[in-house]
């Protein structure tokens, strides 16, 4: 990749170009707008893949949090009985899920998103099929830097490697990637990880039942992680939302100066309400561009509202929670067409 430009910048530049092409002398150039729409599509694909990975991770994390909470309420003895039945799979499952998950992060690099998707998309079941897979191996497979999250000190034990790890303020001190069995407490890697983990009572001996956990350690990180999760999600929304607000308001300003009848404020609020709406905006924008404004200029305009193809056609793996079913919302920023 040539320069460090993010997808969002490219999208805004492209939209600006398309808008300014309306006022160009000689009418709208079909060729140029088609090329701009390709850039828009590429940028959108990148942005969507990042966002999808993000949301998938968040959802997985929430699921595990829910499981964490449920097990938290259970009596430890019950837990051990259940787990004894299921063997190591229970903890393994949750552990690998935990490990496979990245904590919510504010800025996901593209490589990170790809790696995360690659790791977390084989679901927990697949991970459980590999009995040798250790938590720390999963953890270390993530190449990304995580933004620090506030977390108190916890002591956890890797069920596979029997490695005791200490999590301090979101920093993980442990010997990672050392194979199946513990090799002492040599610190080979320092990673900032926020996770919820099953751990036995520290005062128990080496014979640790897999599903027991340190109650003391669990109570702190899990709620903290939940709060962290929520705060990260809201900051995500505000970050993307603000970026888009600016874009929409600029578009709206331009439109108001040109058309003088659209309420950009209303639109931006509408869009901020759901990130999925932005997805649809971009999708619809792309579709309109490929139709090209000449629909209204060269030929009689047959459709007055943006027509959205099934999102699946364009991006088959968009999570259902991201793109709502309703698609008849008149996206104001497309009224320029």
């Amino acid at each position: 990749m040539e320069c460090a430009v993010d997808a969002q910048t490219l999208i805004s530049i492209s939209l600006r170009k398309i808008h300014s092409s309306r006022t160009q002398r000689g009418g709208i150039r079909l060729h140029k707008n088609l090329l701009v729409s390709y850039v828009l599509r590429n940028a959108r694909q990148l942005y969507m893949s990042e966002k999808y990975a993000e949301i998938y991770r968040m959802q997985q994390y929430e699921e595990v949090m829910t499981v964490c909470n449920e097990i938290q309420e259970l009596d430890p003895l019950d837990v051990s009985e259940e787990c004894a039945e299921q063997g190591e799979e229970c903890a393994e499952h949750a552990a690998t899920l935990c490990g496979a998950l990245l904590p919510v992060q504010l800025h996901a690099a593209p490589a990170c998103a790809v790696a995360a998707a690659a790791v977390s998309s084989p679901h927990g079941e697949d991970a459980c099929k590999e009995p040798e897979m250790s938590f720390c191996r999963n953890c270390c497979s993530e190449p990304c830097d995580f933004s620090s999250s506030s977390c108190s000190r916890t002591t956890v034990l890797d069920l596979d490697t029997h490695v005791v790890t200490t999590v301090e303020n979101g920093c993980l001190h442990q010997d990672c990637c050392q194979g199946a069995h513990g090799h002492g407490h040599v610190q080979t890697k320092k990673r900032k990880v926020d996770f919820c983990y099953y751990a036995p009572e520290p005062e128990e001996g080496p014979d640790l039942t897999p599903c027991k956990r340190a109650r003391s350690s669990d109570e702190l990180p899990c709620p903290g992680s939940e709060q962290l999760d929520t705060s990260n999600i809201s900051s995500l929304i505000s970050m993307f939302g603000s970026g888009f607000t600016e874009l929409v308001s600029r578009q709206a300003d331009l439109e108001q100066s040109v058309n003088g009848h659209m309420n950009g404020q209303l639109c931006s609020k509408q869009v901020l309400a759901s990130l999925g709406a932005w997805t649809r905006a971009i999708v619809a924008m792309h579709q309109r561009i490929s139709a090209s404004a000449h629909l209204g200029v060269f030929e009689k305009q047959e459709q007055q509202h943006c027509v959205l193809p099934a999102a699946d056609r364009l991006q088959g793996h968009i999570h259902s929670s991201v793109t709502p079913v309703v698609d008849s919302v008149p996206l104001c920023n497309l009224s320029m067409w």
Partner: protein
Amino acid sequence: MKCFSRYLPYLFRPPSTILSSSCHTEADIISTVEFNATGELLATGDKGGRVVVFQREQESKNQPHRRGEYNVYSTFQSHEPEFDYLKSLEIEEKINKIRWLPQQNAAYFLLSTNDKTVKLWKISERDKRPEGYNLKDEDGRIRDPATITTLRVPVLRPMDLMVEATARRIFSNGHTYHINSISVNSDYETYMSTDDLRINLWNLEITNRSFNIVDIKPANMEDLTEVITAAEFHPSHCNTFVYSSSKGSIRLCDMRASALCDNHSKFFEEPEDPNNRSFFSEIISSISDVKFSHNGRYLMTRDYLTVKVWDLNMENKPLETYQVHDYLRSKLCSLYENDCIFDKFECVWNGSDSVIMTGSYNNFFRMFDRNTKRDVTLEASRENSKPRAILKPRKVCVGGKRRKDEISVDSLDFSKKILHTAWHPSENIIAVAATNNLYIFQDKVN
């Protein structure tokens, strides 16, 4: 590799320009350059809708060192700005293409086109004037018939040479989208005009009817994925033509196969290199110009970063690929922002199809010798061009240490671009349009 010298101290600037060379009016920007079939005439079109035709001086024995300079022969306003009231569209008067017709009598004919209308112009000389009319006197006033007592036959007397251009045919209302190219058929009876989605075949004599021979408009415009970017007739086979697309493919069509040539006979495309995939892959693979070689065996295409020569018999990959300015590959993002990535460079063959030429930025243009595989970068600028001075090859320094006389990529002037060039059909004379200036270079001959 021949050395090109600026033998002719020629810099063309339209007389209406009163500004210095650093600034110019938008209307003076040259938008097309074309030699006629003999090379005697050179036509340029500009953004203001004007056509200026240069004629080469006859070589004289008195001044043997002044080999055929090009002087202004005729200037006329070809297209005017129009307004389409139905679609609320302003139609630019910019001349997109000029194509000469082969000469059949004393007059010269050329086709010029803007976005919507093609016009056939006749350029003729008048050096004699009839004198001795009966019904009107020398001033043109009508004489009183009562005063006429004798009759005489008007005689032609020599006068100062006057070159006049008249529009003989106007081919209008043939295109919904913007015309990007015209090409005269080797049968000298028909020509085709190409817009983004359709190609029309016209008879040079008939203006109220055209035949649509290619139509790639999808039923649903939302399914549009590519547009036609250029088209050309084969130089000798009057049934064959090619058209290039924005996706980097070229289709060769045979008009004998069917009336509507939507199905191609040959499809030329090189698979994309996945390592070079970027946001802008689609833009830089869009073909901006396609030209048949003079012998009709090869095709040349220009996309944003390369020139490719194709053999008509090999469809899966080009015969040769030349990097024009690969150092721009890392700058695509900023070139996208300033719209330079959409520049449509043209490419030309020399008369013997051994050398190809195309333009670049910073008023550079490049020549590639297909036989020796050598290439040269030259600059069209006033500072470097003195009469009879040899053009010095230029070099762009990509990275690391910059040698003397080299230019670094960051100091290239992207507002100075050479999009249009032309090569004399038989001699080594080239015409290079640099914004509003036309440079004519000639091969140095002892």
